[in-house]
């Protein structure tokens, strides 16, 4: 479903080339629950951004659902991202002036989905992620865990091919982190593909496939 072949990404930092990713090869199949671990600067976030089509590799081929996406224009990438990728961020990235419902609705608005259809999906998502009582609350009236649940609901609203979570528990206390992780695992149990970037070995241990990265290369790839 996701196939990366020879992906290389270099940045220019102060006139010097930094290799964030060196010839990464990776295949992720549908329904996998995968964690990417490694020290900071090892390239795990860059890899996630490239899988999420937010960043482009300097070399290599990326196939998503059987189609090459490396050569697409920015706007085409945006459309693919809208349909197939769901992001969950460490700092939630909810729009502060919008309510929980409106935040979840954003991707569907961008996709131009019919308002009646949007209402249906919203009702379902709110129930599914236990947010019925919080529908018209703004992010500053929500707890961290609730914020992240809103973010996950938003990521799921378009029925994406893959959920990409960058340190989803990094900004939460242990207990809430577990809760959020449980929600992500619930997505996985329903057949969704989940990729989590984390530096917490405990979280990594819960996933079914663990990638370890170092200096821009995948050094270990364990499956249960």
């Amino acid at each position, binding site marked *: 479903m996701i196939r990366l072949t020879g992906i290389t990404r270099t940045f220019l930092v102060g006139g010097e080339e930094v290799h964030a990713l060196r010839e990464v090869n990776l295949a992720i199949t549908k329904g996998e629950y995968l964690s990417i671990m490694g020290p900071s600067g090892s390239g795990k976030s860059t890899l996630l951004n490239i899988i999420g089509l*937010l960043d482009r590799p300097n070399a290599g081929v990326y196939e998503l659902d059987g189609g090459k996406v490396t050569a697409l224009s*920015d706007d085409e990438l945006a459309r693919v991202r809208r349909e197939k990728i769901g992001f969950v961020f460490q*700092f939630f990235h909810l729009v502060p002036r919008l309510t929980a419902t409106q935040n979840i609705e954003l*991707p569907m*608005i*961008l996709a*131009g989905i019919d308002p009646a259809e949007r209402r249906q999906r919203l009702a379902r998502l709110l129930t599914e992620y236990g947010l019925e009582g919080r529908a018209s609350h703004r992010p500053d009236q929500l707890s961290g865990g609730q914020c992240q649940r809103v973010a996950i609901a938003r990521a799921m609203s378009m029925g994406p091919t893959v959920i990409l979570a960058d340190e989803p528990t990094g900004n939460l206390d242990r207990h809430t982190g577990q809760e959020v992780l449980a929600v992500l695992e619930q997505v996985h149990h329903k057949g969704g593909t989940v990729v989590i970037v984390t530096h917490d070995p405990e979280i990594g241990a819960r996933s079914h496939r663990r990638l370890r990265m170092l200096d821009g290369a995948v050094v270990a790839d364990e499956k249960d």
Partner: protein
Amino acid sequence: MRPTDLFNFAWQVLRGSVARTLLILLAMGIGVAAVVMVTALGEGARLYVANQFGSLGSNLVIVLPGRSETAGAMPGVLLGKTPRDLTLDDALALKRSHAVRRFAPLIVGAGDVRVGARSRETPVLGSTAELVEIRHMELAQGRFLPEGDPRHSQPVCVIGAKVASELFGSRQALGEWLRIGDRRFRVIGIMATQGESLGMNTDEIVIVPLAAAQALFNTEALFRVLVEAKSREQIAQTKADVEEIIRLRHEGERDVTVITQDAVLATFDRILNALTLTVASIAAISLAVAGILIMNVMLIAVTQRRREIGLLKALGATGQQIRLAFFTEAMLLASGGAAAGLAVGELGRSIVGQMYPAIPFQAPWWALVAAPAIAMTTAVLFTVAPARRAARLDPVQALSRR
């Protein structure tokens, strides 16, 4: 993205920062209101002058003694100097022109008008029966000066409404006698209230036969002769005839000034239009300033909302959607500001209109269209740069910074 969603999104942004929104609305509103008010004042002045000339009488040609080389001044201000007076005989000679329908010689002076113990200093006009037709005067009571040989006069007069009420109070003025200087006149007519007409308020004057005025002020010299051409097309012919007839009578010297109201009106029109346009352009600059304000605010918004823009991109917003969101926001601000400005301008116009009811203040239609249009255009133009910057934002960088 659906248009209603786009609208809602922009609306939520504007509602999210009320102070910022109100400030921009204020700037835009002031600009639009300024354009509306300024053009309303200019147009009001123009219409006022046009009306004044209209009330003066149609197809009018005015003959003044003396030669002035300056065109376009107020007829009342134009007082050339000449050794040769314009006389009644000059005026009577104008009958020779076929283009002339009628004429009224005019003498103006100030007289001490008395009725019993009441006395009042008023302008006294000496003229003939034709004046009422030429100047489109209306009588409230009685009749105007009798027709007949202007060299001879009867002791009668026609008075303005204000003069009548001040001298006679609530008493019937018609048929009563009044005194101007050492002469007695019987009131045979009272004029209807017409208000100001080119510096001469018909409410406050007394009109006597020409010969009587000549005797009163002890002068043969006419203040001016009002000539009415037979038609609009014959105004030029009338002017030429008048100049020729008087030149022949004045031993070949062109020592009178003949002005047509059309020429004067056209000059006024041009001056006032130019003035309105100039001041309106200055007011329009404030609109451009408001546009620059919008640009600044939008640029700040791009920086402040980096994370949000990055997020939208991560959620699948295309560059065009981001640009559209910014343009919608700017358009909402501009149209809100324009609406507020139109309302405030209209309010200001009606307030000034109440203060000066004689002047028909009315913003011309082009200003009512142009002011909002300029507001919208500047808003959109000045949003191009911020919107492009937002659309080009790299989502990875935008999201990584806290």
